[in-house]
């Protein structure tokens, strides 16, 4: 527990840094934000094993949407995926927790290794995979028929995990605490999720994914529907969570990628399937990218 406290204090300081740097946005300031974060994270020890995508391809019908993406997400890191619209970022993270297969015409090739085991292996219980790889969607989507409290604990019921009442209450508080929502909702856990603001709803969705204790959290543009204040709160939440889990975040907001991530991957599609152009420590991607296309993108010359 003491360790966790230290971490959150550390992150408090960090969020103030973010506020300062938000004002001016130039490629240089982006890289300095990223460097800042890299320095702070340097002491953190990665924990557990991670998630690894090897040669991932994805198709929708005959349309080849994603080609040969290999990324090693080490445990306890935050990886941001950036790139223009339609470059396959979202498709890629949906292959990681096997949500890709819900599109009727979808097809897949490659491997996704969670703790060394291929999640696409025949006979794998896909529901167990999704318990370990949580997901937060672009649009906040609390379950409309449930209260705030029920929403957070819905994962337990959905996955049929049995738990005592006291344990549940403890879990409810800790999840909302970790998602940075506890203080705002502790007096109205019986209210409907829809009564919250957009930003609160999104943090409720994060709390909901945390309840089943996933090792990995995938976030598909979690802040694109939110105002800057709520965005900041979610970014703080991401920083706090990154000490205990692996996070992959798709974002269109390059400042956000610079602020929250340890590694950044740049996706691009030049008419053909989306490809991973460059992957590296966030500070490097924003200050001295190796690929010209990456440089063009992060310096705002296109996209």
């Amino acid at each position, binding site marked *: 527990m003491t360790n966790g406290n230290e971490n959150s204090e550390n992150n408090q300081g960090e969020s103030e840094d973010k506020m300062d740097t938000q004002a001016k946005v130039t490629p240089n300031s982006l890289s300095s934000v990223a460097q800042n974060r890299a320095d702070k994270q340097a002491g953190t020890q990665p924990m557990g094993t991670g998630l690894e995508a090897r040669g991932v391809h994805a198709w929708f019908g005959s349309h080849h949407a994603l080609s040969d993406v290999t990324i090693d997400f080490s445990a306890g890191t935050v990886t941001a995926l950036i790139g223009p619209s339609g470059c396959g970022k979202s498709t890629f993270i949906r292959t990681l927790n096997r949500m890709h297969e819900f599109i009727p015409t979808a097809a897949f090739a490659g491997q996704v290794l969670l703790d060394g085991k291929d999640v696409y292996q025949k006979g794998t219980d896909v*529901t167990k995979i999704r318990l370990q790889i949580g997901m937060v*969607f672009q649009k906040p989507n609390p379950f409309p*028929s449930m209260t705030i409290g029920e929403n957070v604990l*819905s994962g337990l019921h*959905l996955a049929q995990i049995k738990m005592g009442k006291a344990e549940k209450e403890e879990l409810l508080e800790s999840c909302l605490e970790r998602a940075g929502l506890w203080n705002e909702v502790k007096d*109205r856990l*019986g209210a409907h999720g829809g009564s919250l603001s957009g930003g609160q709803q999104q943090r409720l969705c994060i709390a*909901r994914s945390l309840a089943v204790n996933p090792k990995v959290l995938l976030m598909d543009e979690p802040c694109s529907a939110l105002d800057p204040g709520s965005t900041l709160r979610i970014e703080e939440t991401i920083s706090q969570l990154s000490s205990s889990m692996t996070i992959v975040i798709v974002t269109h907001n390059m400042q956000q990628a610079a602020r929250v991530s340890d590694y950044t991957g740049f996706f691009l599609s030049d008419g053909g399937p989306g490809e991973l152009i460059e992957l590296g420590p966030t500070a490097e991607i924003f200050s001295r990218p190796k690929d010209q296309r990456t440089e063009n993108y992060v310096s705002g010359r296109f996209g």
Partner: protein
Amino acid sequence: MTTTNLVTATPSRPWQKTPKEILPSILIYVGVAILVALIVEFTGFKGKLAYIGLFIPIGTIAQFFWARYKFGMKAAKDVVASSIMATGAIAVFIPVLSILLTTFIKGLPGISLELFTTDMGEASFTDPVGNGGLLHAIVGTLYLILLSIAISVPMGILTALYLTEIKGPGSRFIQFMVQAMSGVPSVVAGLFIFSAVILTTPLDTSGFVASLALSILMVPTVTRASQEVLLLIPNDLREAGLAMGATQWRTVAMIVVPAAKSGLVTASILGVARIAGETAPLIFTLGGADKLNPNPVSGIQGALPFYIWSGFRLGTEESVQRSWSAILVLLVIVLALFTLARVVGSKQKGARK
């Protein structure tokens, strides 16, 4: 016009019309009403319909010219469009009101306590109205409705879930069959059950067999209405459930169905509305008893639509009066069921803040 400053701002509704602005319109309508009354009085137009038929076009034209004179052509066109829509709404409303009023006025004289406590076992339709009652028919109709709900609602909703959620093999064919079934004439449904159940199995005419016939009509209605409701549930919610490690079944049962609950209740109500007044399928399947039979599985039963039909067919003063009273009772029962379903369906746990 009042002036407001920031310190003492009073809430007002500047977009609302003042009585002064509405007055000319009202005066025009009064004038048109008088004109129409004179026309009906002194020309060949006669009857209630003439009043309505003259008032709407003359009123619209008068308002059109007034609006054009006062506010310009755009406003005048707006008046005409509003008038057409209001006419449409009235055209729907008048028959409903007329049915309710007529039923009430004609049915009320026959309503008495005996109506709800006795059956027709000892009485005849042509007896004075106080003799005998509706008990057998009320009990029969309630059984028919409840049994049909028990058969059709699960079947209809499960079919809708198969078609919208699972989209499994044969979905298209099933969809086609559901559409075809909703076009089956009710008398054919009755004949089908008569030939498929009564003639070939040991089951004889009874409330249960009749509700099988009614279910043939009710299932497609419930299915199609439920489908519409389920399609409105955002796909996000399904994905959110699946992404949390739920099986499809748990996602549907815990998220999709609760989110669609009030719509599914409406779908079931539509189904009940479809069958509550059906008479034709009962002719071959229910038997049409005059005595109370509380057992829906064996022996013939009565039903309100059947009773109404029999009463009108005999055509004596007493039997027709009995039918009107039975119509009123049927209407009240159906309305009561709808209200009950609405209340149950809209109850949400944890709705308090």
